[in-house]
């Protein structure tokens, strides 16, 4: 009889494990982040600086729906460099961390608004699995188009004063555009761990409560791409990690024989 029980238990176990694996796969939480308490964690601080000639700020050519959007051409937020050459709105995050502090989710849904035909804010970071409210405070129709690869992409028209709520289950850097007003773009950064931040006005960032260890710290900016460095965080200490970013030479259009 006991043999039967053992067999039964084994079967149940196998089924459960395969179900978990299947669920896992379908949800894509392959390398899940484990939450816990971090005591005496380290801190990472640094500044992101621009190297090279500062490119001219692009002005957005708002050539449509002028009544709503047609204020003076406003500067593009695609690259914000302060006079001291520090860069604002750079996403700094730890890439390969599997365990650490609590992954706190905002009590209310985070949101991105469309106001005066501009996405506010331009870069929004949200934890994996959370829902974001996409608003339209303008009096014209905007469409919300997500150019995502992992999360199900969408493109829906939203009426003035309307709202669209979307959930993102995979960690991904997603560009959002409004195709009606082609100058409008924003970025949603879906994070799979709580160690992430945006640089402020002075290009500075600070990440706290990092368990001691060696990590890859990455800085990403939409116009400058990504830069990464290895850092070692010690308990209770502050680790400095500055980044330098530069504009890459644009490839010439012709392919020619540079294969």
């Amino acid at each position, binding site marked *: *009889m006991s*043999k*039967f029980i053992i067999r039964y238990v084994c079967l149940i176990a196998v089924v459960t494990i395969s179900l978990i694996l299947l669920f896992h*796969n*379908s*949800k*894509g939480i*392959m390398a899940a982040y484990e939450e816990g308490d971090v005591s005496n964690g380290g801190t990472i601080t640094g500044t992101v600086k621009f190297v090279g000639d500062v490119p001219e700020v692009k002005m957005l050519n708002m*050539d*449509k*729906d*002028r009544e709503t959007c047609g204020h003076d051409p406003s500067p593009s937020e695609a690259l914000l460099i302060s006079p001291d050459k520090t860069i604002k709105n750079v996403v700094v995050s730890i890439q390969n961390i599997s365990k650490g502090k609590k992954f706190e989710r905002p009590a209310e849904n985070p949101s991105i608004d469309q106001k005066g035909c501009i996405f506010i804010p331009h870069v929004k970071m949200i934890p994996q699995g959370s829902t974001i409210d996409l608003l339209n405070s303008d*009096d*014209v*129709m905007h*469409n*919300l*188009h997500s*150019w*995502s*690869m*992992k*999360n*199900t*992409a*969408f*493109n*829906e*028209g939203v*009426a*003035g004063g*309307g709202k669209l709520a979307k959930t993102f289950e*995979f960690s991904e850097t997603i*560009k959002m*555009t409004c*195709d*009606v007003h*082609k100058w409008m773009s924003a970025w949603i950064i879906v994070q799979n761990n709580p160690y992430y931040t945006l640089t402020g006005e002075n290009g500075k960032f600070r990440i706290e409560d990092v368990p001691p260890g060696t990590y890859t710290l990455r800085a990403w900016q939409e*116009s400058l791409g990504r830069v990464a460095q290895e850092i070692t965080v010690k308990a209770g200490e502050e680790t400095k990690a500055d980044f330098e970013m530069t504009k890459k030479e*644009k*490839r*010439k*259009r*012709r*392919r*020619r*024989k540079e*294969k």
Partner: protein
Amino acid sequence: MKKEEEKSFLGLFVLLAFILAATNVGALWNEIVGKRPWKHYQSRFYELEYEKAKKKYDAAVLKFGQPEEQYMYKAVQRKIDEAKEEFESPEVQDEYKKALEELRTLEEELSPLRFEAIVTRNRMLEKKYLYGKYKKEEENVKVEDAVLSIINLDEKNKDLTEKIKYIVERRARLQKKLEGFKSKINRYTKYLESHEISIHKYKEAMERLGSRRPQLQVYQVRLEELNEVDRCMTCHVGINEKKSVSEEQPYSSHPRREVYLGKHPPEEFGCVLCHEGQARATTSVDKAHGEVEYWLKPMYKGKMAQSSCIRCHDKGEELVGGEEIAKAVKLFDELGCYGCHETKGFGRDKSKMIGPDLIEISSKVNPAWLVSWLKGPKNFRPSTRMPDFILEEKEAKAITAYLWQQSEGFTPGEREEFDEDTIDEGAYIFESVGCLACHSDVEEDGKVYGPNLARIGEKVNYEFLVSWLLKPKAHQPKTRMPDFRLDEEDAQYLAAYLTTLKSEGYEERLEELEWLNSQEVAGLGEKLIFRDGCFGCHKIEGMEDKSKIGVELTQIGSKNIHLFDFGLMEKEILGGVGLKHAAENIGEARHAWINAKLSDPRQFDKGRYKMPEDRLRMPNFGLTEDEIKELSILLTGMREEELPESYIAKLKGSKKYLVEGKRVIDKFNCQGCHQFSIDTLTLKGANEIKGMVKLEEEDSLFFQLWEDNERLDRKAGETIQISKEQIKNRIKSEGGDIASFIIDYHVEVEGRVAEEARVFTPPVLYGEGKKVRSAWLFDFLEEPVGLRPWLDVRMPTFKMTEHEATILARYFATLEGERYPFEYVKETKAKYIEEKEREMPGYLAMARHLFESKDVNCASCHVRGDITPEGEPSDWAPDLSLARNRLKADWIVRWLLDPQLIQPGTKMPKFFREGVFQDIFPGTPEEQAEALKDLLMNLPEEMLKEQRTETDE
């Protein structure tokens, strides 16, 4: 000397008797065994079959004998014993018997009751009849009597029914209880049986094979119409078995049996129809296979059997199982073999050329290039189809001179130098307009579809290029190069860029060109052209009506072996395939000759003295081994004898339309720009999902579904992650080759994300037949217009024939099972709109409000007739005034409801969600989309013309 009668012949008689006996035995043995090798094969087959069944049985027994299995088996057996014991214990037995007794009593009670019920019912019927009768006869007393008895009887009936019901219910309970006593026993017994069942099954199969094995016999199929008897299955008994009993011949079943035998049942087709051989022979393997001296059709083995496909099937059809011959047909066509060799079934497309016309050669290329090209085309362009005629410098110059003097056109001017900006602009056009769909400017890419252009600057004159790019057909009426509708300036930029494409270290040689104008040199050239038959593939002034110089290939597969000239190479070539002389195995010998000819066409001249004009003339095509193999399958299959009509698989109906369409698509390389199918993944458990791989990671991929998948419970449009372990098979989408270049550009230069860049690639044609109307498509193919203002790449004008455009329009309709050529469009009929207006007064006006409402605002992006949206043209969306004639009405509705489902990534947003726009057009999203569709199919004139606003006046 003895007298005759005294002589004894005993010795002689004994000797003769022995000889006679021996002869008899020999004859008998030969009759029974020697001439019947198939008996051995057949009995061996049955042995193998038996062995296989036995193996399975043994495995089952062995498995059953395993301690675990035995343990379980015994445990269950014990359970049964326990249950039986329990059942047989006095208490249970007592109860059981009591219940049984009770049941019997009930049964006894039940039958009289049922009988009584029937009697009562019958009596009631009788009374009812009498009631009617008395009523008629007006015998009132009797009527009353009858009524009374009816009421009584009815009550009795009800009473009886009640009783019966009660007893039946009790009986059921009792039966259940009785079963309950035995339930354990039954359950365990069943379990045991299920465990033994596989053993029983195999045992039965084994016994059947052991005892009831069919008598050894000749199996034959008579192919009535061919007057052929096919006995192959006498040895190959198991050829049509689902599972092979052995890998070894003649016991195994047919490879890819489902394809080959599934579609050609051996009872109908025999084996000989595809494999040839001597099907009625049974006395030896070699004889049966026809591998004997002078047998004309020895057996085709393996892929060679594909030779026979074209005996019944159209050459253009890409058959499953006929992959090799399909490749060969394509190759034969592409190489233009029929340019020199008359071959029935090839060269039917009169609007296609093999090589370019040489009428304008002097204005097109420079003479030094032509000389070096003629001496070795593959040195200049390894991917070219032009074969090597193995010409000497003198010969190449002579041909050049002749062509030059015959040529018409302008004389090119001095070479021009272009500045960096002009060249860059040209490169931009080269990459953006669509050239890359067919051409590459990188040598290593080889031939994409059109010629490789990596060294085009060494060859072509700038002025000619400009003029060519502007109107290719004006120079080469049969070229497949389409007209990109470039303006003069763009053509100049593009030509400037192309002339800079040269190989590294290329330097133009300045030569003395006097020979070019020499009559004498040209005279030699003319002779050479006649000898080599250049006019078979190229149009040359004054040689248009020359006939083909090669032998006809239509029946080469049946050509008599002694007509193949091996020259002095016979021993070597035949020896290579293990033959001493050609008659030994005619098929093999023919095959060897064809292979030798294709790999080195002029080798048969070796060692022979021949005048130059008598030498072999076939040029060297530089074919790969695989190509030679494929071509020899095709050539072997081109045979003399024709099969009866009933065997011919005539292409007809939709199959024909699809084959024809595919041919035209291949001809114009539509796949160079357009994607025709989507990705298909087969997951474990045979779940097939369709859509697009969006992102591939190390051990998983992200897949966007284009069709609902019930088994995954996911809808079209959703992106799902699939681990690679789950994927059993993956079929990539076909076509859209240019997309990667366009995406690269928009990512690297314009800084867009890859998904966004996909918008700039040519439209996917998956499901096109459901989308556009055939009549419109026909028109569009004949004369394309720009539909999508944001695209740099453009649909060129192919100037295809009307027949070709018809075939394509029909292809797309057929592919989706749509009606062709006519379809009824109810939406454009007055009656339809009247009906709608009656149902919902102001229907179209309300639809228009929806169209114009600021929260839908179609005109914000879409062009409509004369009215253009704000902003730059590259941000505009397609002209809505075209919808009525271009799009299918039901497609418009599906599109409006969720554009991302039909064309993932499209900039067209989804508007109609449950509950929106109720103040403008109340209804469901479907009704709202329907209304917009009806408006689009009936757009009033005034919505397409710029309205004069008050300020204008």
